[in-house]
């Protein structure tokens, strides 16, 4: 799966959790754009794990601030 496909999956899962979400600025912190609490964030990561079969350690959460960062992180792990 390439980065574009991963981006579609990420955006799809974000919108499942936050259906009100419209445009996402890829370089802006996600939590500034989407009202995500701890449970939403965990559900988002669980969904990505299920869809992409990629394990995301808790220690890596800090690397997942923006949409671009999430996509880059997952794309690197998918290789």
């Amino acid at each position, binding site marked *: 799966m390439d980065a574009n496909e991963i981006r579609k999956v990420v955006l799809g899962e974000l919108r*499942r959790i936050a*259906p009100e979400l419209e445009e996402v600025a890829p370089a802006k912190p996600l939590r500034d754009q989407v009202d995500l609490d701890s*449970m939403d964030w965990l559900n988002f990561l669980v969904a990505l794990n299920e869809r992409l079969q990629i*394990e*995301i350690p808790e220690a890596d959460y800090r690397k997942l601030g923006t949409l671009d960062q999430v996509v880059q992180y997952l794309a690197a792990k998918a290789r």
Partner: protein
Amino acid sequence: MIEFKMPSLGADMDEGKLLEWKVKPGDTVKRGDLVAVVETPKAAVDVEIWQEGVIEELVAKPGETVPVGGVLAHLRGAAEPKEAPAKPAAEPEPRPEAKPAPAPGATRHLVSPAARKHARELGVDVEQLPGSGPHGAVTVEDVENAAKGAPKKEAAPPPDKLAAMRKAIAAAMSRSKREIPHYYLSQAIPMQRAADWLTAQNEKRPVADRLLMGALQLKAVALALKDFPDLNGFWRDNALQPAPGIHVGVAISLRQGGLIAPAIHDVAELGLDELMKALADLVRRARAGSLRSSEMSDPTVTVTNLGDQGVDAVFPVIYPPQLAIVGFGRLAPRPWAEDGMTGAVPVVVASLAGDHRASDGHRGARFLAALAALLQEPEKL
């Protein structure tokens, strides 16, 4: 004859609208079975029955608004003989089998309250619809798409659900501030041990099994309340009524606006893994509009956590007729002095609003101290 009545699903509910029956005359029901869906100002709720017997008559019709305590159905108890028919009975209809209650964790067909309402207006059977919303919930859009190919029934203008919810919250909170003399206390709690323990736990776990700090906080609140019956229960008829169980209402903000605080039952008795699963399930169903009546009617205390929104501390309002509400602010590094050493440690401010008719600040302070002590030993939670 047993009367099954409209339950009170919270202090802000005077009446409920019966949306649909899940049973029909002749069905056998037992305690805990889901028998109806009732719309309250806050949500469409799956109503459980706490009596056993055979449904004799469905008194209320779908679409009817019934006051709390109004009769919804008549049941015949297991020992009661069936009433003799007034005239010779026609060929008896085959008796439908009783529906088993869904097993805990069983897959449920989730339907948002707005979608359920809209489906009724458009004549769409939501139970047959695949959902595209969060966790597969049927959304308004799904209903509208289905309705394009379905014959339309008489459409009514959709009521403003958000306005109804605000009205319900306004009524409950106004009553609280009018009737309950609140006292407020707060305590900063060092969370280094809890944070380290949680990190170590989550390192070993796949993402689907990870714990949130909120689960530890809920468990600690419930355990601390075991020694404080004057903070867990109700103020009714000018008297304290301690609750037999500790059913923690969890304040959950809804994406469309407003909030709801359904209960997790017997929190002190749940292991952390069970509690985390129950919490995740409750949040999911609250947001998908699929709560059960006992979850709405049973909270004996409420916990609200606004830490994710960045506030330092919460000064919450008690949900009547409960006796207390516990708030948590954000978990953040702060300067902390202990044993003559100063450093930056994760700290959370826990707050308590208590009903001064039932308890005093002294008791509230002891409760917060007990809560702080429990959070220093996360492995025992």
